[in-house]
């Protein structure tokens, strides 16, 4: 028994298409005079033939492909973490399990708690590994979320307006085991803060409702509350000195900056210059990928982790503090240790290169997608996907390693590799 548990491998998939967020804000007539403060650049936009399953599988496949036959047969649990489910009963993990060709001796289920789902999934997996009920077992935790709301009617479009620029799409796959080469979690070092609040919700399949101010307030309360619970459990924990890097749930960078500022003021009475310097040093790297895919909901804190591992200079083991928040609301502050090997393993995934290859949508093309005519709505029984809806977004020649949705027959989703 090793007593170790954490993330052995991680990959981020940011979809096949993206949009320039500044262009969108100009198009919507939003005030862009202080746009830079929001720390947003691009957002991923799910094409009609991309769904939460394709995102999840495309994130996980490079990880599973790296495993030998023996290792692959030890994947004994697949947890999908999402607020973009396709069915009230059947979990996404069943599709993922089939498409990745995993063994039948496997637990399959799904976790929902808005953007907190990924942290919940990771903690479930880590505790399974720590408990040693099946020594040597591997667990696949996959966050997958797409935002495709403004479909129902004009009112839904209006309700969505405040979060449209930041709503992205993306999946993060994590292999969790007792060989945590990406991030060894500090077992027992965590803090929670939760209370019922109606800040942001998805009351219908195609709608999102929310109040930006209330959500921000709940996020800030949770950030302070979760860290306080963490520091009550972990002797000597200090927000400023315990963590070399920080990764926060990132609806957009500006919000993380606000939360960091609050904690630095609250716990350390820090002045603006010190706060800015600390943000640049400990949080800027975490925005590397988030500012290119937008808010990925359940995966956002792990998109931040991938960014930190990709962008920072890691020469010795470093402790990373992570904060996850999910509307409604539940939150957690936890920590782990990464090494220079974490960085080299992460870079092998080529996340930035894949993001570079996304098709850049024009505003007209984005509006075409937003009109929703070609989208397979929740509850659809039969459909044939139009892969040429945006002809230029469809790869001219594929390697057979990218999954897309092909059709639905009697509710069964059929996928194909291109």
């Amino acid at each position, binding site marked *: 028994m090793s007593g170790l548990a954490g993330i052995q491998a991680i990959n981020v998939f940011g979809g096949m298409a993206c949009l320039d967020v500044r262009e969108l804000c100009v198009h919507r007539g939003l005030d862009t005079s202080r746009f830079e403060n929001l720390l947003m650049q691009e957002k991923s936009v799910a094409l009609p033939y991309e769904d939460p399953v394709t995102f999840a599988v495309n994130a996980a496949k490079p990880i599973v492909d790296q495993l030998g036959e023996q290792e692959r047969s030890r994947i004994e649990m697949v947890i999908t973490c999402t607020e973009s489910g396709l069915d009230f009963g059947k979990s996404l993990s069943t599709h993922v399990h089939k498409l990745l060709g995993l063994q039948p001796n496997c637990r399959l289920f799904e976790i929902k708690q808005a953007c907190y789902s990924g942290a919940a999934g990771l903690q479930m997996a880590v505790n399974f590994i720590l408990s040693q009920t099946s020594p040597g077992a591997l667990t696949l935790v996959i966050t997958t979320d797409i935002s495709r709301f403004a479909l129902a009617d004009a009112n839904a479009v209006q309700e969505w307006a405040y979060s449209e620029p930041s709503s992205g799409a993306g999946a993060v796959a994590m292999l969790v085991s007792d060989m945590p080469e990406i991030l060894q979690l500090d077992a027992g070092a965590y803090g929670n803060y939760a209370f019922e609040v109606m800040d942001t919700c998805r009351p219908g399949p195609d709608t999102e409702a929310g109040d930006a*101010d209330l959500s*921000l*307030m709940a996020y800030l309360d949770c950030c302070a509350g979760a860290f306080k619970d963490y520091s009550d459990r972990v002797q000597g924990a200090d927000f400023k000195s315990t963590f070399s890097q920080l990764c926060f749930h990132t609806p957009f960078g500006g919000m993380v*900056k*606000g939360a960091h*500022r*609050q904690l630095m003021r609250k716990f350390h009475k820090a002045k603006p210059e010190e706060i800015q310097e600390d943000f640049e040093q400990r949080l800027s790297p975490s925005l590397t990928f988030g500012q290119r895919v937008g808010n990925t909901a359940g995966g956002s804190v792990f998109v931040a982790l991938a960014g930190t591992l990709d962008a920072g200079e890691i020469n010795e083991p470093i402790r990373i503090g992570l904060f996850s928040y999910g509307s409604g609301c539940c939150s957690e502050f936890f920590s782990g240790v990464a090494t220079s090997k974490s960085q080299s393993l992460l870079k092998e995934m080529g996340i930035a290169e894949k993001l570079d290859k996304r098709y850049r949508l024009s505003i007209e093309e984005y509006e075409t997608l937003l009109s929703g005519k070609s989208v397979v709505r929740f509850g659809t029984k039969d459909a044939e996907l139009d892969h040429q809806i945006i002809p230029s977004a469809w790869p001219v020649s594929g390697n057979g390693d990218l999954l897309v949705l092909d059709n639905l027959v009697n509710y069964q989703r059929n996928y194909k590799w291109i």
Partner: protein
Amino acid sequence: MGSPLDNTEIINILIEEIRETVPELEGQPISASDSMVDLGVNSIERSEVILAAMERLDLKIPMVQMHGPKNIQELADLLLVKSAG
């Protein structure tokens, strides 16, 4: 805090913090009937203003309890109520 503040003093604190947080508003008149949204103060800045005011009033309550006011006057009223316990 020393002697209890009145509503006008809290309004002045809020206006000071708005000006501190959003220097771009220099020269623009701000009154109690203005809403921060209409003044162009974004959601992050709005929370900063409220936090700073709470700090100055030594008010330690969850931020979500400060949700709801539509303008500076209403926000000052709520801060006054909360400060009174």
